[in-house]
């Protein structure tokens, strides 16, 4: 017994180090494992609060660009409004398929990272505003990411600039599907992989979200085809997509809840049970 205590006393620093190292390695590995949200995230009142304070100062620097973007969006919506033939039945300007107006939460990016391989955003609305995990996040130009974790007032978002993110997308013209990933290199471009060879792809074609996932409604802009590669082993195309969004400069965003989501999820759960 005495020797055990002696051993522990002698190596107390090393034991402490190994203990803490195993905790931190566990956190690291846990954060890298797919489909598991991390324990440590910036969706809590401490980091969220600090980021909100910082953002309230720095947002003045981007006020001009933010105003320009809003003015352009306003003009677009006005043009839709004025060009409708029958003005008595005004269509909802932003009628995304399967989304009701009250399913959209307006939020603001209070922290944005884009310099590592797995990037996350922090938004200033959380479960109090009805935000839940796996909701889609977009802005006026295109998609941004998927909600990862929420706290009462804040939430984190897996950016599309994250090597672990995979989003169903299609070519607008031909309806060929692929999945949207990021190779971790350039913040202006993402990759659309697993596009079948049969698909007619041309440089400049628009890529939109596909209808196969319940996270995003169909037809939200992503970007245009910039470069086309052929994968020799698999006979699939890999497309470099130039994003409409500047992911390094984000302001206001919309969090959308698909109307059909719960229904589809329940259906799929039921199917699994039946099998």
């Amino acid at each position, binding site marked *: 017994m005495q020797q055990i205590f002696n051993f522990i006393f002698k190596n107390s620093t090393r034991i402490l180090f190994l203990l803490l190292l195993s905790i931190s390695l*566990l956190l*690291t590995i846990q954060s*890298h494992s797919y489909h598991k949200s*991390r324990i440590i995230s910036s969706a809590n009142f401490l980091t969220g609060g600090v980021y909100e304070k*910082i953002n309230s100062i720095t947002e003045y620097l981007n006020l001009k660009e933010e105003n320009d973007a809003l003015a352009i969006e306003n003009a677009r919506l006005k043009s839709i409004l004025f060009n409708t033939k029958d003005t008595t039945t005004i269509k909802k300007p932003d009628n995304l398929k399967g989304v009701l107006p009250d399913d959209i939460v307006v939020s603001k990016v209070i922290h944005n990272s884009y*310099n*590592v*391989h797995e990037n*996350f955003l922090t938004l200033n609305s959380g479960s109090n505003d009805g935000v839940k995990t796996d909701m889609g996040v977009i802005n006026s130009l295109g998609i941004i990411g998927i909600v990862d974790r929420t706290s009462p007032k804040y939430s984190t978002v897996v950016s599309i600039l994250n090597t672990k993110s995979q989003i169903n997308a299609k070519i607008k013209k031909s309806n060929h599907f692929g999945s949207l990933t990021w190779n971790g290199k350039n913040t202006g471009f993402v990759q659309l992989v697993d596009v079948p060879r049969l698909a007619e792809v041309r440089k400049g074609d628009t890529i939109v979200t596909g209808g196969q996932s319940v996270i995003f409604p169909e037809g939200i802009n992503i970007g245009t085809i910039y470069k086309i590669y052929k994968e020799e082993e698999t006979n699939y195309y890999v497309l470099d997509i130039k994003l409409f969004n500047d992911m390094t400069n984000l302001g206001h965003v919309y969090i959308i809840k698909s109307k059909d989501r719960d229904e589809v999820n329940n259906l799929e759960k039921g199917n699994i049970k039946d099998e």
Partner: protein
Amino acid sequence: MNSTLLVNIFRFILLLALQIIIFNNMNFLGFIMPLPYILFIILYPVNSNKPTLIISSFLLGLIMDLFSNSGGIHTTACLILAYYRPYLFKFAFGVSYEYQTIKLNESLTPERFSFILLAVVIHHFTLFILEAFQVTFILDILIRTLLSTIFTIISCIIIIYLIKPNKR
């Protein structure tokens, strides 16, 4: 005695605040980010007890991870740097480092510079390996380590000179 403790607590908070408010928003070429918060571990008094340093480095890394949504990569890198710091001292200043009173925030001699360089390289290399977590990114890891090391050292030296107490 107590003044050292206070200075260290102050340094801990100040460096974290600097890192989060200013340096986290610096992105040269889109991916180079200086990380001068590890100055806390580098400047920690040489002869003070090790468990305190290890625990405080753990907390330092954990707070950084909270703010950057990065799992445990800063924590691991900080812990490894804190644990191997005595070996780095031995390497840079010779075996008898414990008997000298090394004050890093005096003039920059080659020994001090080599110590800071080694510490930053060890920290950054661990950090970027854990951040990428894939062998295919090895070239990327090396480039990031090299470039970020340069910028971290520059910012560290600037901070050291700024907080140096003026005398004589």
